[in-house]
């Protein structure tokens, strides 16, 4: 990790070339690979929970963990993109619910075939993301305020449109609830929704790490003014990020119908905080510009693992809530610490 432009000449150079303590090395490794922490937490938790109750590692209980975390993991993709730009999205759940109610009502009440209903629902989610993006870039309001406002707006629209009523998946065309279909992989029961989430992660990870757009997302979150000065169209990048996030929430709505077996306007009450939790535990910095989307998948799975492991250990569910709270604070503290790395 050391860099030598020239042989040390000044006292400052000698200082810079000093040997590093083990703690500093850990800091540097975590700085280069921030996803190491969630990986270690996941491994440690899994080992402990398996020792406490071996049923934790059963394919059935692990399959259930994946199915349970799929929706939050999917929402966390959009949340990650926005947090990478140093923003935050509080309207995550509201957009997903709005999209979901549109898919459900269109296909049931209005007799629209399943696929067009799904497409319209996803399109509305995308549009909702675009609205967030326009408010952030054109009116220049802080993302926190914009999405706090649209949280209420989209929630109200979802309730008004659905008249507050749930729709049972059984009364919808099969394709609308196809994401809940399970199939066996070895001893595991996997749903179509889980596969869809993994595909979304793969696409997003590719876009972030292999395309210019991905570099620009990081640069904008790192230092928006610097990004502007090097010629990046900062507003365009932000607008694309909020819109893509809306698209992902729309797709998540489809996954949610399959998972829940119904479309209820009162579902996903904790989606905002849960998606932010997954992102933060996954090692993405709330200050923007650093983190990996796969970390958020790990973060979501960690929450699911704690839920399953602690319940199998016969512990009150409040201990899970407590443990996740501690993890969030620890993750942010670690992020603060590794951001202090200097040459």
């Amino acid at each position, binding site marked *: *990790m*050391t*860099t*030598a*432009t*020239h042989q040390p*000449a*000044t006292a*400052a*150079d000698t200082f*810079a070339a000093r040997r590093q303590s083990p703690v500093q090395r850990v800091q*540097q490794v975590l*700085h*280069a690979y921030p996803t190491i922490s969630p990986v270690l937490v996941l491994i440690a938790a899994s080992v402990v929970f398996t020792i406490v109750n071996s049923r934790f590692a059963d394919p059935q209980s692990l399959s259930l963990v994946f199915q349970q975390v799929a929706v939050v993991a999917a929402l966390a993709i959009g949340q990650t993109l926005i947090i990478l730009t140093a923003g935050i999205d509080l309207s995550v759940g509201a957009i997903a619910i709005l999209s979901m109610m549109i898919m459900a009502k269109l296909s049931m009440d209005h007799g629209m075939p399943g696929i067009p209903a799904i497409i319209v629902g996803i399109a509305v989610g995308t549009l909702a993301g675009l609205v967030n993006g326009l408010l952030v870039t054109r009116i220049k309001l802080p993302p926190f305020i914009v999405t706090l406002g649209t949280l209420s707006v989209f929630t109200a629209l979802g309730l008004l449109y659905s008249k507050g009523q749930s729709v049972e998946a059984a009364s919808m065309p099969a394709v609308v609830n196809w994401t809940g279909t399970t199939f066996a992989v070895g001893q595991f029961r996997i749903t179509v929704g889980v596969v869809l989430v993994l595909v979304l992660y793969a696409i997003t990870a*590719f*876009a972030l790490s*292999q*395309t*210019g*757009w991905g*570099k*620009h997302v*990081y*640069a904008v979150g*790192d*230092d928006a*003014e*610097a*990004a*502007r*000065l*090097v*010629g*990046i*169209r900062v507003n365009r990048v932000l607008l694309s990020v909020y819109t893509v996030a809306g698209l992902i929430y729309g797709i998540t709505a489809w996954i949610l119908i399959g998972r829940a077996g119904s479309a209820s306007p009162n579902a996903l009450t904790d989606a905002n905080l849960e998606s932010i939790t997954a992102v933060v535990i996954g090692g993405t910095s709330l200050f923007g*510009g*650093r983190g990996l989307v796969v970390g958020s998948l790990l973060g979501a799975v960690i929450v699911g693992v704690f839920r399953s492991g602690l319940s199998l250990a016969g512990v009150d569910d409040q201990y899970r809530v407590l443990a996740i709270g501690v993890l969030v604070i620890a993750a942010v503290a670690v992020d603060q610490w590794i951001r202090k*790395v*200097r*040459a």
Partner: protein
Amino acid sequence: MTQLAHGSAPAPVPPADTRQPVLEARSLVKTFGRVVGLDGVDLQLFPGEVLAIIGDNGAGKSTLIKCLTGAYTPDAGEMLLDGQPVHFKRPQDARDAGIETVYQTLAVAPALDITSNLYLGREFRRKGPLGSVLRMLDKKAMRDNAGTSMSDLGIGTIQNMSQAVETLSGGQRQAVAVARSAMFATKLVILDEPTAALGVKETGQVLKMIEEVKNRGLPVILISHNMPNVFEVADRIHIQRLGASAGVITPQSHTMSEAVAIMTGATTLAETPGRAG
């Protein structure tokens, strides 16, 4: 004060109006509410020269180059590039015109690696459908090309081009920013206080890079507070004072202390015309 003779001794400056300036600004005005950043500034940059801009803090040096590079839009005044009027609305416009700038605040993305920073905003894409359909970056080509460009500029070897810029020393970061501008400039390079935060050795490196850019035939605008540095590398010196131009001198026409006196308002160019320049 001694004058530092340098490798390619600066030729005596010919009368200003005989050559077409590469970049020319006329009566630039830029205000920030009640604060006047630029109060009608003229500037000319001639082919192949290093033009230094000196001035006290707040004299409007950074504002001037931000107007020249599209980071700010001037309220009034005009700009000509190779004699053609230009209006830069954003930094990208100036870049597209071949002007590369290293801003005082060092516009880098600290968390991104060196190669990504060098190519930020103009990444290479893969050939074929991987690039055109999947928009995939050609990371290897960028890395190879970056390594060559850095060593061409005499920036030693940064061993690991994939390390984050924030893990570099101040001098190395500055080198990355200067390298980026030198790699892509086709008309001119602008450096805003590139050595302000650097030690002696690192400053020497940056001055060498400026010479290297000049040897490639590109004119350079260098903003600096450091009089010995300015007198070492500059062909002409534009003195900025209270948002306006206080005159243009050369290292031959004036001494460092005269330059400082004009810069601080202790005297004026009219009172201190210097030796024939």
